[in-house]
């Protein structure tokens, strides 16, 4: 008979046995964990690639603070390219007339014909929500829905901008290039570029951003970017899909990597279950293999049958895992689309192939040694059962398992260093948990003397099979620990952190207060019964020079990169607008860490105090002379101190502070933060009503949004950790399976000695309850220690034991171990004792 057919026949026979079912379940679980995460990450990356186009509104965008003309504009007119432009700036927006008018500072975007070249506007008007299919008609404008809510505007209303009055035609539901901008609170207004000149808002000195957008076939776009890069002028920047939203791209990359590695925890635990089940499978086939040897089967035939069986099983389990993962990611994909506000393209097939590969690697590394050892079985075993157990060599098992694991971790981590650290981390965590488990099992051994009968027998089993018990407690404990830690950080620590923020921590930032409004605003706030706030001046500036040499974004980036810093961040910071402030004394949330703060004495020459990390990111040092451009005038100051800032104070803080008097005469606006109690819901409306030019940022809303994003992310992580927990349960099942013969025999003896079914069940229950309780305790202890570290290092909170968490861990561990253990040992109670004893006694 052909080998494949023999292998297939053996697999079909074996499917009825517990060890093969556990093997399949463990393998399937490992593949589901890795593949589901792979699918979801893949889809998110695809969504981002599409989003990147949408975010730009085209394939490449040239930004500048002056109208884009000359060679660059000509390059955009090349064949194969479409182009358009937009003009953006801030302006007051007025809805209504006279005393009833609502005024807010808003972001204005004048759109050229054809915009967006990629992506679309979705608007809401009399027709309902629909694709806008273009830009606002001349004489009309669109407004962001949130902005219209703030201003109380409805379609058909007249909206004044500068000297123009335009009709609000529709509300914007989705903007092509504003996705994921959680913190944008100002109303956004869109008008036709043709209407811009009439507003009279584009004047000399206005802060205006010009964008030239191009799209076309890849070669034409590449030619355009080549020309553009070569002829970029001062204040001009080129963006392509590749560098759009680098922070989201790298966040997604990191999230994908983290989830992939977290999924590997499930794979490691599942691998332990695979190894246990494969060992039992090998043992069960010893006699059969010996008989086949007697009947003349060669080693090759034996290996062929068993390896063939394993390969079939691996393919089946991996394919099942991929199918389950595929179903799961549909659900997750729908949720992700809603959470991110994106449409998400379907996943590619690469994760499925990777999942299959993971399944086969785990099987090969962890199941091969005991199966291959079968070939060494002696035919003599037919006569003498105690002869030649055909155990795989310990080093082969370890080496094979380690190699398989290392390969997977290295692949997921993407680098040998991170992979090594991850392996060490997993090893150390498992080692620490195992040590804890060992200590607790030793305690159980002492405790059992106080118990009687079935209970004592149950607990005695925990300490007798100490190795197996340690494996079960560790595996279950690891999954539980991850779940507990996540829950603890997500709820308890975040709650405590929020409580720890001063009760009167400011929750409204008020910006854009003009010099002549400082006192009236202060009076208004005081009249509301709130503490009179400090209004801090703020001067907008652009970086010009450092120590007399021009500090352009690229040159700063190059220098910072040469010094080993983050070039991209340095370039962004150097190019964007700086907010300077001045102060004669430092608040208690600022601390000088280097140099000397000017204090109350007014220095003769302007001095600067810079936040230490910000200075480091730009390569600034004490003593450096920094020159800024403030509304066309040069301002130079020397860095005389570096500060650290406690950002959790939630008060306005500045990276760069100037000495008092240094910024006198430069145009400044003021900013402040106040703590508004929930009992004053009308505060913001009243303030804006009185001072229409002010913008108010509601920190409560922002925190709520941050928290909701955090919740969404941790839900995904939680799913991954539930996989790990399930893998822990499979380890328990595999361990029980491995001791099934002993359990049947001992159950039979207990029955002969007069134990009732109830007493047998009690013995089993006490054993698994102990295993589960220990796993829960181990998990709670480990999670408490880790969350203590997180509390101290991340949230700056003292460690606080969480008994509820420990109890929840214990209860969950016990419930899972009891359910799984009693299920796995049901045969021990159900098997007639006479049959059991006859089988065993021969």
């Amino acid at each position, binding site marked *: 008979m052909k080998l494949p057919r023999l292998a297939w026949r053996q697999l079909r026979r074996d499917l009825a046995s517990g060890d093969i079912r556990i093997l399949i379940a463990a393998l399937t679980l490992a593949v589901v964990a890795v593949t589901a995460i792979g699918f979801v990450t893949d889809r998110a990356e695809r969504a981002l690639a599409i989003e990147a186009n949408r975010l730009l509104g085209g394939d490449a965008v040239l930004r500048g603070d002056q109208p884009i003309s000359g060679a660059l504009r000509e390059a955009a007119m090349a064949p194969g390219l479409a182009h358009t432009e937009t003009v953006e700036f801030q302006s007051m927006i007025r809805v209504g007339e006279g005393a009833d008018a609502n005024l807010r500072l808003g972001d204005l975007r004048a759109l050229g014909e054809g915009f967006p070249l990629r992506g679309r506007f979705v608007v809401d008007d009399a027709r309902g929500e629909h694709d806008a299919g273009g830009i606002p008609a001349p004489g009309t404008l669109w407004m962001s829905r949130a902005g219209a809510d703030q201003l109380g505007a409805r379609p058909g209303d007249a909206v004044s901008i500068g000297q123009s009055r335009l009709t609000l035609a529709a509300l914007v539901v989705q903007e092509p290039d504003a996705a994921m901008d959680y913190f944008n609170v100002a109303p956004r207004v869109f008008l036709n570029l043709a209407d811009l000149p009439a507003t009279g808002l584009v004047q000399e000195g206005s802060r205006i951003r010009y964008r030239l957008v191009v799209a076309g076939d890849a070669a034409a776009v590449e030619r355009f970017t080549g020309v553009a890069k070569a002829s970029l002028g001062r204040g001009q920047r080129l963006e392509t899909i590749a560098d759009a939203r680098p922070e989201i791209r790298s966040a997604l990359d990191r999230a994908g990597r983290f989830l992939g590695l977290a999924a590997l925890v499930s794979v490691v635990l599942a691998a332990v279950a695979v190894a246990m089940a494969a060992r039992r499978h090998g043992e069960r086939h010893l006699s059969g293999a010996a008989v086949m040897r007697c009947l003349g089967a060669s080693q090759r035939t034996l290996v062929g049958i068993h390896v063939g069986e394993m390969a079939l099983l691996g393919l089946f389990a991996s394919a099942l895992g991929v199918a389950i993962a595929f179903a799961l990611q549909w659900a997750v994909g729908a949720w992700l689309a809603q959470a991110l506000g994106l449409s998400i393209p379907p996943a590619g097939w690469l994760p499925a192939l990777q999942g299959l590969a993971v399944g086969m690697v785990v099987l090969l590394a962890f199941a091969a040694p005991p199966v291959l050892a079968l070939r060494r079985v002696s035919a003599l075993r037919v006569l003498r059962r105690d002869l030649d157990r055909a155990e795989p060599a310990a080093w082969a098992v370890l080496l094979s398992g380690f190699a398989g694991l290392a390969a997977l971790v290295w692949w997921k981590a993407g680098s040998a260093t991170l992979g090594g650290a991850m392996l060490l981390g997993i090893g150390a965590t498992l080692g620490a948990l195992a040590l804890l488990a060992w200590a607790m099992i030793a305690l159980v051994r002492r405790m059992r003397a106080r118990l*009687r*009968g*079935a209970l*004592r*027998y149950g607990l*005695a*089993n925990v*300490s*007798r*099979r100490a190795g197996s018990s340690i494996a079960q407690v560790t595996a279950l404990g690891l999954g539980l620990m991850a779940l507990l830690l996540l829950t603890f950080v997500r709820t308890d620590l975040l709650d405590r952190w929020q409580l720890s923020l001063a009760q009167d921590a400011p929750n409204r930032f008020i910006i854009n207060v003009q010099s002549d409004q400082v006192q009236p605003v202060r009076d208004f706030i005081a009249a509301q019964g709130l503490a009179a706030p400090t209004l801090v001046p703020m001067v907008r500036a652009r970086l010009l020079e450092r120590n007399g040499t021009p500090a352009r974004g690229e040159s700063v980036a190059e220098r910072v990169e040469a010094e080993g810093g983050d070039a991209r961040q340095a370039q962004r910071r150097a190019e964007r607008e700086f907010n300077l402030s001045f102060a004669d004394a430092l608040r208690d949330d600022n601390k000088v860490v280097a140099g000397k703060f000017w204090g109350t004495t007014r220095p003769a020459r302007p001095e600067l105090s810079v936040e230490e990390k910000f200075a480091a990111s730009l390569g600034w040092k004490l003593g450096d002379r920094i020159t800024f451009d403030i509304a066309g005038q040069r301002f130079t100051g020397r860095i005389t101190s570096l500060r650290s800032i406690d950002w959790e104070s939630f008060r306005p803080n500045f990276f760069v502070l100037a000495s008092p008097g240094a910024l006198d005469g430069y145009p400044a606006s003021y900013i402040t933060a106040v703590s508004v109690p929930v009992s004053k819901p009308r505060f913001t409306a009243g303030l804006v009503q009185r001072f229409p030019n002010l913008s108010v940022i509601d920190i409560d809303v922002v925190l709520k949004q941050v928290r909701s994003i955090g919740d969404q992310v941790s839900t995904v992580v939680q799913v991954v950790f539930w996989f790990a927990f399930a893998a822990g349960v499979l380890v328990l099942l595999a361990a029980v399976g491995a001791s099934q013969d*002993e359990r049947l*025999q*001992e159950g039979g*003896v*207990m*029955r*002969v*000695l*007069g*134990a*009732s*079914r*109830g*007493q047998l069940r009690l013995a089993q229950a006490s054993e698994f309850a102990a295993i589960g309780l220990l796993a829960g305790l181990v998990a709670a202890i480990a999670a408490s220690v880790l969350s203590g570290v997180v509390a101290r290092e991340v949230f700056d909170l003292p460690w606080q034991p969480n008994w509820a968490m420990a109890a929840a861990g214990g209860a969950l561990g016990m419930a899972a171990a009891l359910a799984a253990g009693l299920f796995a040992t049901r045969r021990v109670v159900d098997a*007639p*004792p*006479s*049959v059991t*004893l*006859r089988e*065993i*006694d021969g």
Partner: protein
Amino acid sequence: MPDAASPATQSRTALDVANLGKRVPLPSGELTILEDIGFSIASGDSVAIVGASGSGKSTLLSLMAGLDVPSSGEVRLDGAPMSALDEDGRAKVRADKVGFVFQSFQLLPSLTALENVMLPLELRGDADAEGPARATLAKVGLAERLAHYPRQLSGGEQQRVALARAFVTGPSLLLADEPTGNLDTHTGEAVIELLFAMNMEAGTTLVLVTHDEHLAARCSRVLRLDGGRLVGA
């Protein structure tokens, strides 16, 4: 009638087996393991059941212990029919009245010698298990090995622990299945001496399944099984 024996005769019936049969279904038809077995054993008597492999000895022992249910007939222990009881009821009867000694000792490996002997008392619900267990282990000469686990004891010692476990509950019936089958001749003889001595002292009814004619001869009666039938008593 056997179960109506007068106490005055000092031969109260401990075990009564009547018309006992055991058949198991096989794909090829029904296999008869035991057929029409009947005998009575008086209290305190010792009976050997002998027969070749496959003659049905172990099945008969299982039925007498209530580990299995007969296809026909009845087993009465101290006059009470076993078949009227469910599994847990039969377990209770075993806990109260039956001791068991196996060929391969069947000590629970996770428990010490002392705990193994205490177990049947605890399962029965006795308040004090440790005292009697210690005393019985001392009787079999293992007072110094109470805290040893089975794997730390020799075969002979393990079977002595098993004897202690069987006698500690003061059973009215002791069932022994090839008790020396796994021991060398010398150790086996020592164990048998101990078994008979303890049996004598406790006045227990002993049923011993064995291949060993020499051992069977030490019992007051020998029942012979062949092909599932009783061929000589």
